[in-house]
């Protein structure tokens, strides 16, 4: 009720955080042998930027996201959010995974409320949960259980569950990867709209060159494992973008070339 007293909802930050990824290298121990996955990855993200990380399957993109989320510490190098070192998970950096990973025993509303509940601030902030559900257009399904939702709806809930925490950095690990192509196109549009409205910094891993170009300010192309930055391409086109934009088509040909897939284009 109190929130209504303000003309504007105070819950969302105006601007996302800056992110510095400084000379990150990482490796996994598998059966005694060391498997390097990231090799001196170095880039920085301005507040509110939308970065797409593009690379071949299994190159270590998702690992990079886990490091940014703070779920694992890197072997070497450092990560900073707004200049402060990232040492563990924190709700200012929220991940949306490829699978919605909704808790099947919780209703949509309770799934979205998860973050506020975990931080012990749900009481008195229930309105934020309602707002987040409304933001992704699922108000009618607030009492549904995950098994009653379609894939696209479940992924929307996962998005709401992330957004309710007002993340400064939204980390997207192929969030649309498992959706059918029509739902995917719809949700790409919704994602751009949300990002423009909220202003959070976005870091998104994708396999889809077209998706990366439709959404991102910058596309960072990674090499095969161990991942190294191959190219850092600015996509200087206004939003909302058009999929048939010849400039994007040109960039797409260029990026596919970097990935060694330009033969058919």
């Amino acid at each position, binding site marked *: 009720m109190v929130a209504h007293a303000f003309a504007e909802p105070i819950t969302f930050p105006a601007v996302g955080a800056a992110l510095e990824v400084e000379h990150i290298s990482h490796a996994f121990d598998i059966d005694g042998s060391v498997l390097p996955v990231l090799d001196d990855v170095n880039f920085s993200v301005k507040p509110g930027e939308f970065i797409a990380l593009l690379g071949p399957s299994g190159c270590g993109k998702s690992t990079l996201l886990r490091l940014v989320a703070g779920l694992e510490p890197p072997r070497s190098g450092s990560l900073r959010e707004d200049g402060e070192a990232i040492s563990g998970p924190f709700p200012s950096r*929220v991940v949306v*995974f490829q699978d919605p990973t909704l808790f*099947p025993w919780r209703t949509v509303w309770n799934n979205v409320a998860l973050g506020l509940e*975990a931080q012990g601030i749900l009481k008195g902030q229930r309105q934020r949960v309602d707002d987040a559900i409304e933001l992704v257009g699922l108000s009618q399904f607030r009492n549904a*259980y995950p098994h009653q939702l379609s894939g696209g709806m479940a992924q929307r809930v996962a998005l709401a569950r992330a957004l309710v925490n007002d993340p400064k950095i939204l980390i997207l690990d192929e969030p649309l990867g498992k959706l059918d192509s029509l739902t995917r196109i719809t949700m790409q549009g919704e994602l751009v709209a949300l990002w423009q409205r909220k202003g959070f910094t976005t870091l998104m891993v994708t396999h889809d060159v077209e998706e990366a170009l439709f959404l991102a300010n910058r596309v960072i192309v990674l090499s095969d494992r161990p991942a190294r930055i191959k190219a850092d391409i600015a996509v200087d086109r206004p939003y909302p973008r058009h999929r048939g934009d010849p400039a994007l088509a040109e960039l797409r040909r260029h990026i596919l070339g970097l990935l060694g897939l330009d033969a058919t284009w």
Partner: protein
Amino acid sequence: MSTYSASKAVAIPQSVEEGAALAGRPLSFPTALLASGTGVFASAAWVLFGLSCQLWTDLSDWPRTHALSIAAFIIAGGILGATVSGKLLGRFGAGLQARAPWLLALGLFLSLWEVATAKFAWLPLPFFPPPQAIIEVYTDDLPKLLDSVVASVKLQLGGYAIGAAVGFLTGVSIGWSRSVGYWVHPVLRFIGPLPATAWLPFAFFTFPSNWSASTFLIALATGFPVTVLTWSGVASVNNAYYDVARTLGAKPSFLVLKVAIPAALPHVFVGLFMGLGSSFAVLVVAEMIGVKAGLGWYLQWAQGWAAYSNMYAALIVMSLLCSGAITLLFKTRDRLLVWQKGVVKW
């Protein structure tokens, strides 16, 4: 989704209207008989049972034969009445109609039982008492039987609750903490597979009373499956759930209470179900050997006095109690795990 529920909402009144139209139309007698055939036959089977009590004289002296046959006729009349008035009785009528085949089979079985025991003794008599002898136990030995039921339920409830609680906590601890697992797992491996009844001699001289010894044994029989399944449930929780919760700011206590435990709950119920089964076995043995009260003891007492009808009467009560307990557990599970509907079935 909305179209689905909308079409369903339309479909229901349609079928109700149809049903009303059907009920309002006067049916000719043969059609009515066909529509509710099984119910009528079930009623006939109970008439047969009543007659089988009356047609021949009993081979021995059983005072309840006449009353039993009257009861059979009343039941037959009830079935017939309910079948004919079918639709008027609503849900009860529908339930009865669904169970009519069983009522038919039961009537036939009781008739056969009556004839095979009380009338012609095709089955050797003291060991296979007729239905009226068992009815006699329920009417004449009721206080003792009830005392036994109360004693059994008390013992079972106490032991089961303790075993389930300890098993659940142990399971969560070893599933969650590696160091607890390190110490408890081998102990569990060593002790768990031992049948709880093997502890009988130990329990009865270690514990201050036979009652506490039996409680311990029942708790042990319950605890092992509950522990193992809770543990496997907690251990098999998808790691992604923890990742999600952690990025959203969850502390370890939240991860255990709000992630691990709810995710493991379906497994826990499998454990509770298995524990219930094995604890029944222990209950009966413990009552027979140690406590000298309860249904297990009643069974043994009846057998000792060659009171076979008492034995059967106790067996029937026992089976009703056990299946009632399992039904209760399943109902609890269905209520707690509504979210599972359409996800997992076992």
